[in-house]
């Protein structure tokens, strides 16, 4: 009788202790935001899935260690900005009004630019009333955005380095390739800069001559004129700086007019399922440099976990995954407090921590951080084969 009483008492105490421990479970909020509407909807879905998957992995291994030694779980909330500048600004203000410590996003460069513009430009400038909230971008890739504000950081691939490598490798491997012809989406800042500023320049720096260029707009549907110009130029390599919809349109017109360059090079962000969904047959053999492919153990694991949350792993969503782990590391090294009254100070700690980083861990290897808060990510070349992107060359 006495033993039973002790047993019941003991289990009651244990239960109380356990619930007490549960009650002490702290959470830190990381917000995600991006486009879950319109043609770029898949980007938002994948980034959200990657963030949720990463949070799940981190939480299962105990969570984030706070300054006082306790552990906190990460909670992720993802908001849709519909790829609209005003809404993006509204979303970041909304996030800043909660107890979220940092935000990962946005998807669209036309949201990132105004959004970084409303952030405080220099960190301790008392006369600047800009928002003081750290943003760590996973997808928006237009060149040179992070230098707009000291609160903005990006983990996106450096196209200058990658395309330099592509053209160098092509030239080494096949010295008989001499000319490059470019096709570019003129009204999309990213693709436009990628051809005019990056691809053209890097091709010439690596021994190619530019045979010409054709332009179109991002929702164009008739490429007859452009492909005729391409055919006349008869270049060895055709480089297409465009997103999947017009890339597919051009490739189909090339098939129609019998234009078959020896090598096809594509735009970084087109190395996703979209291109294969739209025109797998015509896109066969296109070479694209990218900052993710599931080649390493970590990469395969990340892809698998993201799939559990119904997202697909590509260079964009895997940047979000990497960001989560980088943030965990920064939060622990900067000793954030995780206390409800200390939110702004914690945000500042995270910002300072991100600014201090010289290297981060990426799924393809170590990523260097640059002085203007951008990333120099390791990369490899993928090629469209069948219904998938296959690793063609790993320069690492």
């Amino acid at each position: 009788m006495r033993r039973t009483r002790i047993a019941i008492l003991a289990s009651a105490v244990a239960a109380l202790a356990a619930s007490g421990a549960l009650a002490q479970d702290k959470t830190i909020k990381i917000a995600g935001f991006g486009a879950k509407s319109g043609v770029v909807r898949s980007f938002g879905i994948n980034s959200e899935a990657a963030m949720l998957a990463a949070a799940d992995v981190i939480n299962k291994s105990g969570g984030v260690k706070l300054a006082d030694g306790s552990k906190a779980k990460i909670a992720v909330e993802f908001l849709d900005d519909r790829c609209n500048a005003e809404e993006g600004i509204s979303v970041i203000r909304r996030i800043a009004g909660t107890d979220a410590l940092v935000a990962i996003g946005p998807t669209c460069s036309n949201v990132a630019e105004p959004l970084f513009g409303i952030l405080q430009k220099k960190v301790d400038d008392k006369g600047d009333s800009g928002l003081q909230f750290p943003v760590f971008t996973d997808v928006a890739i237009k060149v040179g955005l992070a230098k707009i504000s000291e609160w903005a950081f990006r983990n996106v691939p450096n196209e200058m380095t990658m395309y330099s490598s592509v053209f160098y490798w092509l030239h080494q491997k096949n010295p008989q390739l001499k000319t490059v012809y470019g096709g570019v989406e003129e009204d999309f800042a990213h693709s436009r800069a990628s051809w005019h500023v990056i691809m053209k320049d890097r091709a010439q720096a690596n021994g190619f001559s530019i045979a010409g260029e054709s332009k179109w707009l991002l929702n164009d549907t008739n490429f007859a004129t452009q492909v005729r110009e391409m055919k006349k130029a008869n270049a060895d390599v055709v480089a297409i700086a465009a997103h999947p919809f017009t890339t597919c349109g051009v490739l189909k017109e090339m098939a129609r007019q019998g234009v078959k360059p020896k090598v096809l090079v594509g735009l970084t962000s087109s190395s996703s399922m979209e291109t294969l969904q739209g025109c797998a047959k015509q896109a066969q053999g296109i070479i694209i440099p990218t900052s993710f492919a599931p080649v390493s153990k970590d990469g395969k694991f990340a892809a698998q976990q993201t799939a559990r949350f119904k997202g697909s792993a590509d260079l964009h969503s895997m940047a979000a995954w990497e960001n989560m782990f980088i943030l965990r590391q920064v939060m622990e090294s900067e000793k954030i407090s995780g206390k409800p009254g200390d939110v702004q100070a914690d945000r500042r700690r995270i910002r300072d921590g991100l600014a201090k980083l010289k290297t981060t861990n990426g799924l393809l290897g170590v990523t260097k951080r640059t002085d203007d808060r951008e990333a120099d990510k390791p990369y490899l070349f993928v090629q469209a084969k069948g219904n998938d992107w296959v690793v063609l060359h790993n320069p690492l």
Partner: protein
Amino acid sequence: MDFYFGLAQLIGVHTLLGLSAYIVLLTGQVSLAQAGFFAIGAYCAGMLTVLAGWPIVPALGASALAGAVTACAVGFPALRVKGLMLVIATLAFGEGVRLFFFNFDYQIAKGDIKVGPLGGEGFRQIRYFPEHGWSTLEVMLFVWAFVAASMALLWWFDRSRYGAALRAVGEDELAAQSVGLNLTAVKVSAMTVGGAIAGIGGGLYAHYTTHIEHSSFNILVATFAIAYPIVGGLRNVFGTLAAVVFVQAFLVEGLRDLGDWRNLLFGALIVLAMNLRPQGFLGRRRRA
């Protein structure tokens, strides 16, 4: 609180956009050109504060003037077309303005960087407000000062002969002409006032988003401009305000918790609103 002030700024600027279409709608003209005047105001005010260092109020005055002058110029040929053709003509004008800015480069060097509009890349770093230390609350009050002034102006018009003339032309042009109203004067003046209001709205838009590009002024913006007064009803200016609040505060922000359903509900609720209240939220039901 910052979020609510920011949302109020957004509602204010969109109300200006809606009001610019409202006054033109009163005269029976459906104008999809208001986004074009909005764009002109935006680039004008942006260039004046960033490139020429003007303070914000004169810059907005200049953008109002730019909007008004362009609208006046558009008002005259617009007289020649009616109904659907006017809709398409103004749509084409708006697109023309957007394409103009798509091709427009005007950069000057400030220190070691170049600033100014750069065609497809847009016009970045219009940071007058943060650079001068304006808080979100101060910007909101500033925006709403203009909104209140515009609403007061239009309200006063409505109480005056001019407002009666506007509505008379909107109801029945032939009858209005036969009582001696000058159609040209009424329609062009309405367009001009609308252009001025849109110009101010655009100038404010450029400054509170800090970055503008041609695609910020696309057909969707033009459509929203007329959507606000239509959904709100043409009885008075508060209808437009109510519609802006409905769309931006309720549909866009309020429904955010519904996640993916929000976007689907957007179009569906507009269709529903038009079926249930074709005269708009604050409109008078017309007898067919």
